[in-house]
């Protein structure tokens, strides 16, 4: 089975305190720790496990800039057979539809039985996989948390409410968005990354994949970010500013006052 995994390099929200820049039109990106989008990493691991069970290849692809090559190299170190970086100034400020259009052109240049994405990236949108499937006229399933290959079909489970699992059969070729926790992604160390340092990663431009310029980039985007701001969801918490011991003391009182002590 030939599998394509679409990945993205994102700021690691577990490692970073995200702040706004002075203009309020983006987050402060200096000094952020970047890594591969976590659900994408599960998607790559799943692709590798399927390939190792039934044979085939795993290709990883990203739409971005030169700096994004590091996540492709990381996925090569995990065991992907090949990687491609799709990068062109014409793609900048594309919305989700634009990114899916670029990926569609790339997919049509090759042959893939199965296309995986992570369930969502740093923008929390969960949109690329479903759009890509619709453009290719492939069946789609989101929030997938297990995959079994059964002949020319897949038996998959989707994570639905309450931790229930919705079992589906889906025909190939198809697009699936992968939920975190589906597997245990293998560890990649610096040594592994060094071993694939010389593997060539082609950079593809618009002309290489034959994408229609009018369908991508800022001018084609129907959805545009205007400004960022710090959210105020509820009535912000009363922050305890005492010493650790004083804070613990206060928390204990509060648990008692709220009827939590039996």
């Amino acid at each position: 089975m030939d599998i394509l995994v679409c990945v993205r390099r994102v700021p690691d929200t577990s490692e970073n305190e995200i702040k706004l820049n002075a203009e309020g039109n983006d987050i402060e990106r200096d000094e952020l720790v970047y890594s591969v989008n976590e659900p994408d990493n599960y998607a790559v691991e799943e692709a590798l496990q399927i390939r190792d069970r039934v044979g085939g290849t795993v290709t990883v692809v990203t739409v971005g800039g030169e700096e994004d090559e590091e996540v492709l190299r990381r996925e090569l170190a995990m065991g992907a057979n090949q990687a491609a970086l799709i990068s062109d100034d014409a793609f900048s400020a594309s919305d989700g539809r634009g990114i899916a259009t670029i990926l569609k052109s790339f997919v049509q240049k090759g042959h893939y039985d199965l296309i995986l994405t992570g369930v969502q990236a740093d923008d929390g949108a969960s949109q690329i996989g479903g759009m890509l499937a619709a453009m290719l006229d492939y069946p789609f399933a989101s929030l997938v948390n297990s995959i079994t290959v059964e002949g020319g079909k897949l038996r998959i489970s989707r994570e639905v409410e309450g931790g229930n699992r919705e079992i589906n059969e889906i025909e190939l070729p198809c697009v699936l968005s992968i939920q975190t926790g589906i597997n245990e992604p293998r560890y990649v160390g610096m040594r592994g990354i060094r071993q694939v340092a010389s593997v060539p990663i082609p950079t593809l431009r618009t002309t290489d994949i034959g994408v229609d310029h009018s369908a991508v980039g800022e001018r084609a985007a129907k959805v545009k970010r205007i400004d960022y701001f710090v959210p105020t969801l509820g009535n912000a918490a009363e922050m305890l500013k005492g010493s650790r011991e004083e804070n613990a003391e206060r928390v204990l009182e509060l648990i008692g006052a709220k009827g939590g002590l039996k």
Partner: protein
Amino acid sequence: MPRIFTYIQHRGGVVDDSAAELLTAAKKIDPNTVPTAILTGCVVDLEVACSAVRSLYSEIWRVSHEALIYPNAEVVRHALSAILPRNSILLVPHDHFGIDLSPGLSVKLDSAFVPDVLAIDRMEGESISLVRQEFGGQVSVHVRCDVSTGAVINIRPGAFKADQSTATSGVIVDKSSEVGVLTARRRYVETIVAEAGDVDITKHNVLVSIGRGIQEKDNVAIAEELASVLGAAVSCSRPVVDAKWMEKSRQVGSSGKTVKPKVYLACGISGAFQHLAGLKGNPFVIAINKNPKAPIFQVADVGIVDDVLEFLPELTQKVRESRGIAA
């Protein structure tokens, strides 16, 4: 002004809470709108659900087909793209079904798509300004959506208050004959109900709930120790289950359990909306997190910026002292 539609989910004849929330969202786009509700399904359940939304919506489109008996997004997408007028706006709840349905539907309709919307400003000209969140809820962003060729907008469950007005006499219009042949290359097989697990976190008054901040499996014991002296249970957020540090049955959230404790200690939990969706009954939330920008502090009653690995043992010690338990 484009026509506004809402997609209404229902199960066993019971209409989802989002039906009234989507109505509120529709009125944010256009206060004068009279949105149309669309329900898909089959036989008795669909009839009951359509009747139930008559008190909210003045027009209801019913699509009855045996292929729609289970809400398979692949089939529903076909039906909706067949019946929706061009350039209309469709509102859908941003849950496991809306995530499955909407991105592809927007492509089929050649409309814009905006996922996981928390707030909507009025429509101006042919664009709508909406509020979303990025980076795990750490920042919000205004986005502008060009709706000149229509839009599919996914609305975060619970973000809009339920509409309280009543239409009482909604007209049901049958659209079943317009959907054509419904086939899909994805077939629903069955739903496997989550296992109960060893501890029932839905039955506890106090939950010591741990997130990514617990850092490694061995540290779960720190939370277990506090829970044991408090007579509480340990629950967790999704990353802890993904890492296989705790069983799925301990997870609080939209894809885990819904809990109603009196006191909820959120320890190293960032506070993603999928997690908060599992927290009901207005518990007293005490949040401990190293990151002062963690979204959990926006919804907690009391917050402490600290490392849970240091703070929890201190709290355990205080509980022991107060109860005269030897360490």
